[in-house]
C-alpha cells in the first residue's frame, strides 16, 4: 500500500510538472501514452479505484511486451506515441449536409439500401434531434429493464454496476494476454456491457446500433457480455455501412462469459475502411475476442462476416471449461485489393464432453493476402472432446494469396479432432454459365461467392444475413474484368 502511495504521489507530481492537470478540464489530451495518460483517462471517466488499478497494471505489462510478429502480415511501423488516447465522447458533426460527403461513400450507402437518416449518422452529418429515434431506443431500453437485462455503455456499467464489472472484467482476456489486449486494457475509452440475469431469454437481438451513446466509442473499444445460468442472448456488432475513421489503429477487446446452460450468440459484420485500391490508408484491426464457456452445458457461438480493414489480426476464441459445453466459430473473411487478414480461432477444450465446430471461409481477390490460423487444443482431462474444423479458401484471380495454419494439440486418447481444408478458384466456367443466363460478370461473382459462403451466412440473424450478402458482392466490385 505504501508502495502504491509513493507511486501515485510520484505520478501526481509529474502531472503538475507537465501541466496535465489543467488539461483534465478540456476535451482531449495530448498525443502519446504514459502512466499519466492512463490516470487521466481513468480520472476523466470518474472511475473507481479498481479500474485505475486494472489500467495501470495493464499499462505496465504492455511496456514489457512486443507487437506479435508471428502472423502472416506486413504491418508498417506504428508509433504508439503519435496516437491520441483520449478524445471527448461527444464530437461535432463533421458535415452540415450529405452534399459535402465523399460521393463514393454515398453510392455505397445507396447500394446497401441504408436509409437517408442513417447515412447521415454514419457519415458524420448533423442529424435532427427528432430523427435520432430516441423514442425507439427508450422503449427498447425499458423493455429490457423489465426483464432485468443490463445493456449499456461500458462507462455506465462501471458507474452503476461496478460489482459486476469488477468480478468479470479481465476474466477471459487478462491484461497480460497479448500486446494489443494490454494496450486496450490500459486505455480503452468505452464500449458495451451486457448482463442477462438467470433464466432470462433476451427477447430481441441486442445491437450496438440501439445502444444509447453508441457513437464514437473510439478505437479502443471494450465489450463485456455476461450470460448468467440458463439465459440466452444474441448480440450483433457492427454494421454493413463502410465505417470511416481517422483513427488507423483499432484494438478492441470482447469478453463473453457463459454460465451454466447459458447460450450466447455473437454476430459481427465488419466493414471498416479497407484503404483505397492501391492499398493506401485503411484501418488496422487488431482485436482480441474470447468467450469462456464457464458453466456446464453452456454455449458460445461466434458468427462473423468480415470484409473491411486494411490489416486484420483477429481470432475469436472459446475456452470450453464447463463440462458438455459447446462452441462454434463460423466465419467469412473477404480480402480485396491490398488488404491483409490473419484470422481464425482457438478452441481450448478443458471440460469433459466438450464440442467445438469451426467453419472458416476465406475469399481472396486482387493482391490481398488471407490467412486462416486456428488452434484446437484438447487438455488431458477433457475426455471425449470433439472438434470438427472446415477451412475453405476461394481465390479470385492470380495475384492473391491464401494460407492455412491449423494447429492441433490433443492431450488424451478418446477425443476426436477432424480437420478438412480446401482451396479453390472461382471457375470461369461458372461465371460464363451465369453470363449465358443474362447475369453480368460482376453479379455472377457476387452470386458465386455468396453461394460459397452460404453455410456461414445462414448462421447470421435474418436482417444481418441479407446485408452481409450485399456486402460481399459490393466488396468484390471491380475485382474481376
Amino acid at each position, binding site marked *: 500500500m505504501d508502495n502504491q502511495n509513493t507511486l501515485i504521489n510520484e505520478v501526481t507530481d509529474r502531472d503538475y510538472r507537465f501541466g496535465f492537470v489543467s488539461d483534465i478540464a478540456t476535451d482531449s489530451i495530448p498525443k502519446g501514452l504514459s502512466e499519466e495518460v492512463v490516470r487521466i483517462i481513468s480520472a476523466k471517466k470518474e472511475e473507481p479505484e479498481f479500474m485505475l488499478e486494472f489500467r495501470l497494471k495493464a499499462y505496465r505489462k504492455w511496456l514489457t511486451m512486443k507487437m506479435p510478429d508471428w502472423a502472416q502480415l506486413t504491418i508498417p511501423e506504428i508509433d504508439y506515441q503519435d496516437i491520441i488516447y483520449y478524445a471527448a465522447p461527444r464530437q461535432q458533426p463533421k458535415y452540415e449536409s450529405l452534399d459535402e460527403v465523399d460521393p463514393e461513400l454515398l453510392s455505397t450507402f445507396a447500394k446497401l439500401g441504408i436509409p437517408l437518416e442513417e447515412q447521415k449518422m454514419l457519415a458524420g452529418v448533423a442529424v435532427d434531434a427528432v430523427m435520432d429515434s430516441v423514442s425507439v431506443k427508450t422503449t427498447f431500453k425499458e423493455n429490457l429493464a423489465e426483464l432485468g437485462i443490463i445493456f449499456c455503455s461500458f462507462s455506465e456499467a462501471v458507474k452503476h454496476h461496478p460489482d459486476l464489472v469488477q468480478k468479470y472484467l479481465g476474466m477471459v482476456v487478462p491484461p497480460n494476454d497479448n500486446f494489443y489486449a494490454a494496450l486496450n486494457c490500459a486505455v480503452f475509452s468505452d464500449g458495451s456491457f451486457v448482463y442477462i440475469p438467470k433464466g432470462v431469454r433476451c427477447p430481441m437481438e441486442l445491437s450496438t446500433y440501439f445502444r444509447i451513446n453508441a457513437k464514437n466509442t473510439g478505437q479502443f473499444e471494450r465489450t463485456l457480455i455476461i450470460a448468467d445460468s440458463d439465459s440466452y442472448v444474441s448480440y450483433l456488432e457492427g454494421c454493413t455501412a463502410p465505417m470511416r475513421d481517422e483513427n488507423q489503429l483499432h484494438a478492441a477487446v470482447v469478453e463473453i462469459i457463459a454460465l451454466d446452460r447459458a447460450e450466447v450468440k455473437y454476430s459481427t459484420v465488419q466493414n471498416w475502411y479497407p484503404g483505397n485500391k492501391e492499398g493506401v490508408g485503411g484501418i488496422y484491426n487488431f482485436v482480441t475476442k474470447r468467450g469462456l464457456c464457464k458453466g456446464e452445458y453452456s454455449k458460445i457461438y461466434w458468427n462473423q462476416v468480415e470484409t473491411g480493414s486494411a490489416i486484420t489480426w483477429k481470432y475469436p476464441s472459446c475456452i470450453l471449461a464447463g463440462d458438455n459445453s459447446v462452441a462454434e466459430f463460423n466465419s467469412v473473411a473477404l480480402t480485396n485489393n491490398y488488404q491483409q487478414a490473419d484470422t481464425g480461432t482457438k478452441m481450448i477444450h478443458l471440460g469433459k464432453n466438450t464440442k467445438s465446430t469451426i467453419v472458416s471461409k476465406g475469399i481472396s481477390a486482387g493482391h490481398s493476402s488471407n490467412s486462416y490460423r486456428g488452434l484446437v487444443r484438447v487438455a488431458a482431462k477433457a475426455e471425449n472432446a470433439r472438434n470438427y474444423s472446415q477451412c475453405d479458401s476461394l481465390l479470385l484471380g492470380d495475384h492473391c494469396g491464401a494460407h492455412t495454419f491449423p494447429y492441433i494439440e490433443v492431450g488424451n486418447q478418446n477425443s476426436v479432432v477432424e480437420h478438412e481444408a480446401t482451396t479453390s478458384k472461382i471457375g470461369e*466456367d461458372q461465371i460464363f454459365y*451465369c453470363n*449465358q443466363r*443474362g447475369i453480368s460478370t460482376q453479379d455472377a461473382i457476387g452470386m*458465386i461467392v455468396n453461394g460459397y459462403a452460404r453455410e456461414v451466412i445462414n448462421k447470421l440473424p435474418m436482417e444481418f444475413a441479407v446485408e452481409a450478402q450485399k456486402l460481399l458482392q459490393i466488396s468484390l466490385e471491380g475485382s474481376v474484368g
Partner: protein
Amino acid sequence: MLIIKDLHASVEGKEILRGINLTINAGEVHAIMGPNGSGKSTLANVLAGNTNYEVTKGEVTFNGKDLLEMSADVRAKEGLFLSFQYPVEIPGVSMINFLKTAVNESRKYHQLKELSAGDFLKVMREKKELVQIDSQLTNRSVNEGFSGGEKKKNEIFQMAMLEPKLAILDETDSGLDIDALRIVANGVNLLKKPENATIVVTHYQRLLDYIVPDHVHVLYKGQIVKSAGKELVLELEEKGYDWIKKELGE
C-alpha cells in the same frame, strides 16, 4: 435472325472453326451433326460469347445487331440461349435465386418491370409443369449433385423460364432416358413460336424424330461440309460419316 459469315475461331492458338457460313430464319429448326471433335460445341460457345474462344475472322449478325460486339450476358439478354453439353454446378446458389436474377436482369434490359417474388414463383410453377421437372431439383443449388439427365432437364427448364429467341441445344439428348427425352422434346416443341428459332446439336436421330429439323448440317473439321433437309439424318444414321469424308476426297 442469325447470319454467320466466314466465322473462324481458335482456342489456345489452335484453329477449330475454319470458315462457317450459316443463315437461320425465324421459325426454323436447324440440326447440326458431325463427328466428335468437329467443332459443334465450339460453335455453340463462340455464338454464346465464351471468351475462352478467340474469334479470328468473320461476322455474325443476330436480329440485325453485331453479335460478336456483345458480351456474353448481353447476348443472353438479347435472346440467345445455350443449353450446355456439360452444365456446371454452382454450390450454394439456389436455383430460385439464380433464375430470378436471370429473368429480372433480362426484363430490366428490355425496360420491363421486374417480377415480384410471387409472380416469379407463379411463372416458375407453370414452366416446371411444362418440362415436368421435380420441385426437389428446383429447390436445390444450381445443378449441384444433379445426375447427368437431371442437368439436361434443368437446362430446358431454364430455357422455358427465359423464353429465348434463339436456342442452341448442345447434345441435350445425351444422358436422357427414353421418357425424359420425350418430355424434353415435347417441352421444346411447346416453346416453339413462329418468331423463334432453334439449333439442335446432336449425334442421334432419336431427338430429331421429336424435334423435326427444317435443315440439317454436317460439321466436319470446323466447316459445314453438307447441308440438306431432314432426310439427311436418316442417311447419316444408316451410313455414318465415312461417305461424307469420301465425298470430300479423304
